[in-house]
């Protein structure tokens, strides 16, 4: 397995506040990796540390073979980052902004020009390339931010809540762009989010809480482990009694609303058994696969209850 990011036992305290306490994980090359967690879980702090902005108190981070703290400049050359804040200059045009930033990485004029043309195309900036950054809409800014992060053709692209505060349509277009980048440019994408539907599209998800990894896996694995499927059965009018009887025998709890029975099922296998047994009495049914929302609420919610 090719690990492009490896984080071991990472710690960071701000005074008495332990923002990150013992984070362990790795990221595979070329994957879309989501870091999911509630506000204040330590997502941004972790990203800031990996991006060489913050010094960890403890722990080891290896990025593309380089050790954090010893080879920071080598790391900086292979990463691109989009931060939560808009960090380009309001009074410069998008092109000027990109020009200034491109010179951080290279002195070669031709190369810089080519790199800028490329990111303009990838991030679809043509329309507002010569307008001041400060006059752009939220979605345009985000696209410019992403273009900035791509200016050095990084191997890893970090995005700290890239879609927060955008309207749904813009959110989708930004998200599509990120997904396309990862596929077309074979880039490793590391993003933090608190939108479940975004995390569900990632190759791998880590859920963090209280500065630690709460759980990790592919979205499918997480759903299997932490969410329940929901079956909705509407029995034929005459068969309502039979269904109740059967559910009772099987020890399945259900909620009835207007003759629709909602039954929580642990595994899809059990769902099939249930449907097979009751096929004679069913007027209609629906199986709802568990969502990332359930996973998130199950993990984070449970911990919060334990802490209360």
């Amino acid at each position, binding site marked *: 397995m090719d690990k492009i990011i490896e984080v071991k036992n990472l710690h960071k305290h701000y005074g008495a506040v332990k923002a990150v306490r013992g984070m362990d994980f790795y990221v595979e090359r070329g994957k879309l990796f989501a870091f999911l967690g509630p506000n204040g879980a330590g997502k941004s702090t972790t990203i800031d540390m990996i991006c*060489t*902005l913050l010094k960890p108190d403890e722990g080891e981070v290896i990025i593309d073979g380089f050790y954090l703290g010893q080879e920071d400049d080598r790391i900086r*050359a292979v990463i691109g980052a989009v931060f939560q804040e808009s960090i380009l200059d309001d009074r410069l045009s998008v092109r000027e902004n990109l020009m200034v930033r491109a010179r*951080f990485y290279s002195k070669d004029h031709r190369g810089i020009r080519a790199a800028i043309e490329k990111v303009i195309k990838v991030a679809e900036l043509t329309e507002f390339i010569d307008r001041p950054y400060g006059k752009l809409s939220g979605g345009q800014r985000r696209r410019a931010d992403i273009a900035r992060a791509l200016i050095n053709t990084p191997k890893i692209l970090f995005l700290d809540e890239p879609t927060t505060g955008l309207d749904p349509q813009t959110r989708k277009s930004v998200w599509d762009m990120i997904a396309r980048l990862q596929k077309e440019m074979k880039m490793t994408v590391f993003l933090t989010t608190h939108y479940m539907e975004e995390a569900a599209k990632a190759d791998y998800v880590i859920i963090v809480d209280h500065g630690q990894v709460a759980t990790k896996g592919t979205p499918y694995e997480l759903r299997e482990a932490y969410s329940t499927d929901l079956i909705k059965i509407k029995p034929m009018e005459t068969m309502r009694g039979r269904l109740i009887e059967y559910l009772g025998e099987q020890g399945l709890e259900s909620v009835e609303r207007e003759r629709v029975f909602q039954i929580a099922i642990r595994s899809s296998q059990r769902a099939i058994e249930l449907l097979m047994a009751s096929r004679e009495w069913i007027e209609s049914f629906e199986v709802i696969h568990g969502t990332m929302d359930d996973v998130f609420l199950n993990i984070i919610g449970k911990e919060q209850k334990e802490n209360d």
Partner: protein
Amino acid sequence: MINLGMRNFRLYVREKGAVFFSMLGVFIIIGLYILFLGDGMKEGAGDLPGKEGLIDTWVMAGVIAVSSITTSMGACGVIIEDRVKKRYKDFMSAPLRRSQIVGGYVYSACLVGGLMCTLTFIAVEIYLVVNGGALPSVLTVAKVLGIIALAVTSSASIVLFISSLLKTNGAFNNVSILLGTLIGFITGIYLPIGSLGEGVQWIIKCFPVSHAGALLRQVLMEDQLNKAFTGMPVEAVDQFKEEMGIVFRFGDTTAEPEIHVVVLILTTVIFLTMGVLNMSRKEK
């Protein structure tokens, strides 16, 4: 460094408010002089021949000195802005050295200071010539530009250090306004230093910009002083120079021009070092 310096310069020039406010100190002095202080000072000069031109030149030399600090302060606004808006994150996550980032700020502060100060000099000369003064010689212009270079590096270093201590826009604005209004006093531009108390005189003499002002007065007023005091005893000239802060007297000795140059260079070195060290500390 130059890349970031030019970026900072552009950001300054494009904010017209910042440009105006960084010149505010200068406008205040000129306004006060023309409206209130000028006539009084000219009367106070007694019956010196050519006193109008002499006093005009005296004030304008001070104006150039003051502009070196207020304009470079304006250019330092970007330091605070970068910090407040967390733009430094963008620089720090790129393979840039901290010294390049700090160097960019120094570069733009000096560039803005040098440019605005030279513009002030040109404006001042136009004013003086229109009011009947003589055009300065090439040598005078060269000397003035040299002094401007020294004054700007010293002033830019001081404001860079001050800016490295400020954390918010509000703090920065307050300090700039305070500096803009007080600078005329603490460099002895509004009033002749001789008319002030011993303690205030010392404050003025401690302030590096005052030394730039003294040097500029020496250079710009040389011919006029010679004309005004022809046939008068040397003591009279010396006393006038001392009263007006054209030369500074420390105890029994009068400071030579070299002393002023040394003061400016030393303050540059000291404040630049402190400012750079202050800004280079890695966030923990």
